[in-house]
């Protein structure tokens, strides 16, 4: 019979002395105890195997095959082409510009996100309770916006004719505007035509949407640092920057490690925002590896082989970059 009254009384406070684990009941499910965790894992393992690991294996195969329209429809088997897909993409300058765009974007965006996020996190920790909650709710909105809507919003803000950004730039005093940018009238400035300005908008968009997560995580980490440490630092006359470097940063290192990995993973393969900002895979100079792989594989004529080869390159880079951090994470994590 079930009796949960101990729980209602506040759990673990049973008058009965605690007995060792060997008294665990093995009945009810009829399974031997050792097999229970394995049975529980079956559905999860099946999903991970069938939907993640097997496709990863397959993409490694497809990268060495020619898979076009005929092969997709199943009229012909895929033909083995060796390294052809790779040599073809390595000869293509779009691949190199995509690679450059991917790397530069990731480095800039990850750094900016972490810097802005940490600064806001530290600020939130200094604010009063009410103000802090107020700001957290506000930044939550930026964080919550779906990636496609993020792209749409910033596309609208940077619109050439009716965009708020051009309006704001027009507000600058003429002398300042011409000193800084060499122009005074911004109406009609097409921000989303050139690769460099698409990426500028993309960086702003992605940093705007991802700094809240960093800020809230840093805030949670800061709340866990005992106030005495700061007290001691203040008594010793430590400067704010020194306190951050000597107390806050070392104690938050595990948090920063996780945040860095996550940001790298997210920013390396940014797709939706870029897709929206450039209006579909049209501007080849502005491709990153994700969009390039997608465009090769799914825009007519479909070249699944090259698409797979590009995806494989992206995966390899991502795994190498994150491997270091994953190892650290595994070490730190008390599993």
């Amino acid at each position, binding site marked *: 019979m079930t009796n949960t009254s101990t729980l209602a009384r506040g759990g*673990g406070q049973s008058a009965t002395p605690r007995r060792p684990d060997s008294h665990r009941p093995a009945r009810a499910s009829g399974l031997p105890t050792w097999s229970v965790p394995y049975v529980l*894992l079956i559905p999860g393992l099946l999903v991970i195997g069938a939907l993640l690991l097997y496709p990863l294996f397959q993409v490694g195969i497809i990268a060495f095959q020619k898979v076009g329209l005929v092969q997709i429809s199943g009229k012909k088997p895929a033909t083995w082409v060796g390294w052809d897909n790779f040599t073809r993409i390595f000869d293509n300058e779009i691949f190199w510009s995509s690679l450059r765009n991917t790397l530069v974007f990731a480095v800039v965006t990850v750094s900016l996100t972490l810097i802005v996020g940490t600064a806001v996190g530290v600020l939130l920790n200094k604010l009063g309770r009410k103000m802090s909650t107020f700001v957290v709710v506000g930044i939550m909105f930026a964080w919550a916006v779906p990636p496609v809507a993020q792209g*749409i919003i910033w596309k609208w803000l940077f619109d050439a004719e009716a965009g708020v950004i051009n309006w704001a730039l027009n507000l600058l005093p003429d002398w300042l505007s011409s000193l800084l940018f060499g122009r005074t009238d911004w109406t009609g400035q097409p921000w989303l035509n050139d690769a460099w300005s698409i990426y500028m908008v993309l960086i702003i968009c992605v940093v705007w949407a991802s700094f809240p997560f960093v800020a809230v995580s840093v805030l949670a980490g800061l709340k866990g640092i005992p106030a005495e440490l700061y007290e001691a630092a203040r008594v010793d006359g430590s400067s704010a920057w020194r306190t951050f470097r000597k107390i806050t940063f070392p104690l938050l290192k595990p948090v920063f490690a996780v945040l860095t990995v996550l940001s790298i993973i997210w920013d390396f393969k940014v797709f939706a925002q870029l897709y929206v900002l450039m209006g579909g895979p049209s501007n080849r100079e502005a491709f990153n590896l994700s969009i390039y792989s997608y465009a090769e594989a799914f825009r007519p004529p479909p070249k699944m082989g090259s698409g797979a080869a590009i995806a*494989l390159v992206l995966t390899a880079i991502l795994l190498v970059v994150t491997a270091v951090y994953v190892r650290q994470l595994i070490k730190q994590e008390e599993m």
Partner: protein
Amino acid sequence: MTPLARKRLGKITLNAAGLLVFLIAIFPVYWMASTSFKANDQIFTTDFIPFPTHFTFEHVDRVLSEGVAGHSIWLYMRNSAIVAVGTVLIGAVFSLLAATAVARFRFKGRNTFLILLLIVQMIPSEALLIPLFLSVKRLGLYDQLAGLIVVNVGLTLPFGIWMLRTFVAAVPKSLEEAAWIDGAGRMTTFWKVLFPLVAPGLVATSIFSFITAWNELIFALVLMSGSEGYTMPVAMQYFFGQKGTDWGAIMASSTMMTIPVVVFFLLVQRRMVSGLVAGAVKG
């Protein structure tokens, strides 16, 4: 300056900085929402119009009746909801089982499984796109929401298990032991003790899965061919194909797409803060 005055000035500066962060974060979202209620002459202008002075529902009406790509926005909202809810229901069961296994049992291969969970989260979905597209096509799930649900379960499960595991581990074992001592079986203990305490964590995990599936663009783009099957992120792309971008309609639709996510976000936030089972085992 007296120390008190300096302190007060510091406080004002901090609050001003906080307010600035708040405004920067919220303005783009506000701009999206306010544009969807502005009349066209207030949208297509080089002036800055902070509030819609002629508040109008015309754009909302238009996306609900005419919509885009031949269907009302409702259809796409419904498709997105079906995919997201389907993903959550399957994912919740699977992740609860797996999370219980890793958080409550010590077994051979446990660490391997946890490392596997971490590693598969590093796999970019772009790498899975091509093989999954070919498989879905072969299995006859192409152009079907079911196919999209299956794929989304795969994309969300590793993180779901990873996250839920900490919630299960946070439930003190002594509670279950107390139930065992009182003679409860394994199933009863699970349903009457563990499940109610993990439920908030399960809700939080499910919300994350829901949001991921709701926002997912690439697979929806590739696995659906007919516009009846489009989810919101895909349907949104069709606004830009039309002649002269209809920003009022776009903003109305993207506001509708954003609202559920924002609501869920604010819900999870409170749950995270409230601190789960804090105090359940205080003596």
